[in-house]
C-alpha cells in the first residue's frame, strides 16, 4: 500500500486527472480526424478511388467495432457485410437495455480507439520503447495529471525518434510504416461522402456521442461509480493500475494522432501533383523512392552518424523541391482542371452552365 495523505484531492479529484487527460487527447484526435476528412473531401472529385479506399478502411473498422460490441454483449452476429459505401452488422438476438447501450457504445467509441489499439500493439513489437507507466510520488490531481502527461510524452518521444530514424531498407520498418499509413487513413468513424459537406462535420460525430450519453444518464452514473470503486481499490492496492489504464487510452489517442499526421504529407503530395501535367506528375512519387535509395547509397561510401535520418531528410527535401519546381515549370492547365469549370446541367436539362 502506498503512502499518501487522505484528503479530498487524493480521494476524489485525483481520480479525474487521467480521465481529463484522455478526453483532452481524444478531442485533439477528433481535430486531426476532422482536418484529414476535409483534406480528403477536397481530393474526392479527382481521386475517387483513393477516397473509396479510405472509406473502406474506415467502414471496415467501424463494422468490426460494431460486431465486437454484439459479441461482447453476447447478442451474436447474424450478418456481417462491408463495402466501400456501407457496412452492415445484424445481431442474432435483439437485446435491449444495457446490452444495447454497450453495443452502441462500441459502435460510437470503437473506431477512435480499436484501430489505434491495433497499431499500438504492433508498435510495441516494432518500437518496443517508451511504454512507461507513470508512478507519481503523491497521488494528487496535479501529480496524477503530470504523471499521465510525462508517460505520454515519453511514449511520443520514442515513437517520433523511431519515425525520424526509420530504416526504409528494413522490411519490418517499411511494413510498420505502411500499417501506420493504412490505419491512419481509417481511424475515423464516418466516411467521405459524394458531397463536400456530407458527414464530414466534426459536430456530426459529437452530437451522436452526446445523444448516446444523455440518453441513459443512469448508465453514466453507474460507470462513474464503477470507475471510482476501481480508483479507490487501486489506490489502496497499486495506484499505478488506475492511471496506467487511462495511460493506455492516452497512448492509443497519441498513436492515432501520429498515424493521422503521417497521412498529411501523403495527402499533400497527392494534392500537389494534381497541379502538375499528367506525364510529369509521377516524378514526385519516383523522387520519394529514388532520393532515399541514392541517399542511403551515398552514405555507404561516406559513412556518417544517423544515416537513416539524414537520408529521410534528403528524401523529404528533394521531393518538396522537385514538386515545387514541377508546379512552377510544368504546371497543368488550371483553366481546364479547376473545379469551378466543371459543367453542370440546369433544371431544364438542356442548358449547361459552370458551377458558381
Amino acid at each position, binding site marked *: 500500500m502506498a503512502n499518501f495523505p487522505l484528503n479530498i484531492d487524493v480521494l476524489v479529484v485525483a481520480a479525474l486527472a487521467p480521465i481529463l487527460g484522455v478526453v483532452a487527447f481524444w478531442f485533439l484526435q477528433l481535430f486531426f480526424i476532422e482536418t484529414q476528412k476535409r483534406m480528403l473531401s477536397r481530393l474526392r472529385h479527382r481521386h*475517387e*478511388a483513393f477516397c*473509396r479506399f479510405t472509406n473502406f478502411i474506415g467502414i471496415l473498422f467501424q463494422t468490426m467495432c460494431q460486431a465486437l460490441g454484439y459479441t461482447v454483449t453476447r447478442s451474436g452476429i447474424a450478418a456481417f457485410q462491408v463495402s*466501400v*459505401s456501407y457496412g452492415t452488422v445484424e445481431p442474432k438476438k435483439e437485446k435491449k437495455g444495457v446490452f444495447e447501450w454497450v453495443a452502441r457504445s462500441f459502435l460510437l467509441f470503437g473506431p477512435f480507439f480499436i484501430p489505434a489499439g491495433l497499431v499500438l500493439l504492433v508498435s510495441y513489437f516494432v518500437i518496443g520503447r517508451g511504454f512507461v507507466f507513470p508512478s507519481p510520488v503523491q497521488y494528487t490531481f496535479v501529480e496524477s495529471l503530470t504523471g499521465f502527461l510525462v508517460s505520454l510524452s515519453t511514449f511520443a518521444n520514442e515513437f517520433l525518434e523511431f519515425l525520424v530514424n526509420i530504416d526504409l*531498407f*528494413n*522490411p519490418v520498418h517499411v511494413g510498420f510504416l505502411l500499417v501506420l499509413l493504412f490505419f491512419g487513413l481509417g481511424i475515423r468513424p464516418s466516411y467521405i461522402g459524394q458531397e463536400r459537406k456530407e458527414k464530414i462535420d466534426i459536430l456530426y460525430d459529437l452530437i451522436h456521442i452526446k445523444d448516446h450519453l444523455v440518453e441513459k444518464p443512469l448508465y453514466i452514473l453507474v460507470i462513474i461509480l464503477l470507475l471510482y470503486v476501481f480508483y479507490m481499490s487501486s489506490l489502496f492496492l497499486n495506484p499505478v493500475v488506475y492511471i496506467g489504464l487511462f495511460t493506455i487510452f492516452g497512448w492509443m489517442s497519441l498513436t492515432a494522432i501520429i498515424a493521422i499526421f503521417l497521412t498529411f504529407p501523403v495527402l499533400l503530395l497527392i494534392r500537389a501533383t494534381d497541379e502538375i501535367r499528367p506525364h510529369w506528375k509521377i516524378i514526385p512519387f519516383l523522387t520519394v523512392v529514388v532520393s532515399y535509395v541514392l541517399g542511403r547509397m551515398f552514405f555507404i561510401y561516406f559513412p556518417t552518424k544517423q544515416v537513416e535520418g539524414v537520408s529521410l531528410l534528403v528524401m523529404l527535401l528533394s521531393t518538396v523541391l522537385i514538386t515545387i519546381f514541377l508546379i512552377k515549370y510544368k504546371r497543368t492547365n488550371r483553366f481546364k482542371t479547376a473545379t469551378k469549370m466543371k459543367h453542370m446541367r440546369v433544371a431544364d436539362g438542356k442548358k449547361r452552365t459552370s458551377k458558381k
Partner: protein
Amino acid sequence: MVKKELLKNEQIERVLSPHPLSFMKLQTLCIFVIVWGIVVWWLTEFSEYASMFSGNIWYPLILWGLVLLLIGVIASLLAIQWTIFFLYLGVFASALGLIFWQHWENDITLFIFIYSIAVSIVGFLIVELYRRSHKYIITNLRIIFKGGIFTKRERTIRYDKIADIDAKQGVLGQIFAFGTIIPVSQSGFGLGSDKTMAAGGVEVGTKKARFFGFAGGGKEVQTPIARSYYELHGVYPYKDVKQLVENLVQSHVPTQYQKEQIEFQKQQVDIQTQMRDLLHKQVSDKPQKKAVRQQIEEEEEEEPEEEVVEEEKVNRKKTAVPEEAFQPEQVDVQQQMKELLKKQKTARVTQPPEEEVEEEDIEEGEENKST
C-alpha cells in the same frame, strides 16, 4: 473489330478490356516473389539474424525455396488450382538450375534478390500481356468475347439466349469501380462448379497382416464461373456496363404482353393459313364440277335418238350435279371455314384491352383527321 465481322444491322455499343487491377490474383503471385526475395536478402545479409545463415551457403536458398513452395501449396489449396504450386516449383527449380549452371554458389543471397525481381517483372509482363489479349465487344445484337495469347478463343452470345446475368465486384473492384459480369446462357454456358474433397486413409497392422481403411467425401456447388475470356472480366466502369448489358438483354426478351401478342398473331396466321388451304381446296374442286357438266352435255350431243329413254337419266343427273358440286367433303370445308371465322371473331373479342384502346385511339385519330 473489323466491320466485316459484324452482322447485318449490327452496331458496336462498347469495346471493353479488363481493368489493369482485375488480375490481381495473378499479380499477387508476382508481388509475393519480389517481396519474399527482398526479405530473404535483408534477413540473410543485413538483419540481426544474418549470423544464423552464415553457417552454410545453401541456407538462404533453402529458406527461400521452402517458404516459396509452402506458400505455393497453401495458395493452391485455397484457390483449388495446383498451377500456382507448379509455377513456384518452376521458379525454384530454375533458380537452382541457374546457380549450378553459372556457379553462383558464393553469391546466393544477391542472386535470390536479383532473380526474384527479374522473375516478378517477367511475371507482371506476362499477366499484362494476358490482360491485353482480352477484348469484349458489346453490340446491339450480341456480346463477343475474345481472348488468348497464342490460342485465340472467341465466344458469342446473343441477348435473347442469355438466361441469367451473374455480376460480382470485389473490394478492389469496389474501390476502382470495375467488376465481372458473367452472362449465363440457356444451355448453361457460364455455369461451373466448385468442388471440394476430403479424404483420409489409415493403415494398421504388422508386417504380415495389414488393415487399410479409406474414407472420403466431396461436395459440389453449382456456381456461375467462366474463364476470363468467356466472361466480361473486370470491366470498367462496372455499373455502366452492367446497366448496358441488362438493358440490351431486357430489350431482347419479350414481356408478358408481347408474348400474348405474339401468340395471338400466331393463331391469326394459323387460321388464315387454314382458310387459304380450304379456299384452295374449294377452288380446285370447281373444275371437277365443270367437267361433270361438260360430260353431260357431250352425252346429250352424242345420243339424241335415245332422248326419250334417257331423259329421266339426264334429269336425274342434272338434279344430281348440284348435289355432286357440294359433296359431303365440301360441306365439311364450308363448316370448318364457318367455325374458323367464328374462332377469329371470338379471338378478336378476347383481344387484350390495350389493343382495343389503341384501336379506338387510332380510329378516333382517323376520324379527327377526316374531320
